[in-house]
């Protein structure tokens, strides 16, 4: 599973960890993260993320 990086602030979404504090459980692929989820650090939307590497 790919990690995704927030291009605004550099936060990394790691599917192994998810974002449980904001309702995304560990093991959720970035593609399956709800569309209205936002970067927990800076508030940018999913469209501002790019795959790592």
């Amino acid at each position, binding site marked *: 599973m790919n990690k995704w990086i927030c291009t*605004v*602030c*550099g*936060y990394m979404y790691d599917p192994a960890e998810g974002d449980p504090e904001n309702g995304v459980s560990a093991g959720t692929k970035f593609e399956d993260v709800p569309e209205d989820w936002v970067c927990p*650090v*800076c508030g940018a939307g999913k469209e501002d993320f790019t795959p790592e590497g």
Partner: protein
Amino acid sequence: MPAIEIKKDIYWVGVIDWNLKNFHGYALAHQGTTYNAYLVLDNKVTLFDTVPEKFKWELFHQIQSLIDIGDIDYIVANHLEMDHSGALPFIMDKANPEKLFCSVMGEKSLKAHFHPSDWPLEAVKDGREISLGKRTVNFIETRMLHWPDSMFSYIPNDKLLISSDAFGQNIANSNIFDDQHDLDSLIREARHYFTNIILPYSPLVLKLLDRVQEAGLELDMIAPDHGMIWRSHPDKILAAYKEFASQKLRPKAVLVYDTMWSSTEKMIRAVADALISEGIEVRVMSLKSHHHSDVMGEFSDAAALVCGSPTHNNSMMPLMADFLTYMKGLKPKNRIGAALGSYGWSGEAPSAMSRILEDAGFDLPQKPLRLQYVPGHEQLAVCKELGRALAQAIKAKVAS
């Protein structure tokens, strides 16, 4: 203001903005502020940060009083917000340095601000070290503290941390060191500053403080970009940041309101009375008298927020909408809320305020309370009951 040597061959070359009130368009700076820049005289003469564009000549003269500005070899831009970068194009032009350092995210910010074509820009990663001759500088990335581009510069030889906006205070004073002031009032101003600028990023502050501790960084002096330099009490401001960022709450309620014909004000005062008799500390703040940033400064360590607004044209008063928008953006955590107000015929304001508080993650132990027209003795008793119930919730929250 003359340059001041803060460590051997390291000079404060900032400027004092004595009369500033409007800080960045969203907060009030009651005591003005300073924009601190630092010049290190070493084999590589290095300038850390600049000042707003309107003070560019003053920075120029500060530098020129110590060296010829053309002798600057390196410039470090720890943060690209314009209170620290506005004078950068002018200084780049005058100094023509060999290198301009900023963080990886800073490179993007810098290009989007100044669109430079030929600046000798070098983006540095977290942990990168450069040599100035006798000294080295370690760069510490501090993304979103409080912009993506923010970083710290640490000089291990002098145990000096140049900390950008972190640990700052909005105070204009020609005595630029912490020990020249009353420590409690410095910490109070640091809290106001933290709450209005850094609060949303509290989890990152806690991580950073852990990182600093784990790395065993020795800190003899912390030099922020606003206000006083921490040379005698760096430990105190670090401890204070830990407290601010962990949002440790006290048995205190801020009652913030706007009112038309004083009915909502009467309700608020009744709630305050009940809270006081239950031993809760209160601040009663009319939005017509207090700026939203000052209400937030008081709310920083308060367990509860009580919002009062009459219903006006089916909605809350404009100042309350302003306050709630601002407050929600600062993401206070783990708080109790309540909403109330007087109304004439429709009465939407209390539930509208409640919805915003709910969205902001507040616990709302009591239903929104609305009372028609002017509250009498019996209606005020209802407000007092709400106050007593809130007091119990506050005590439970603070104890947990």
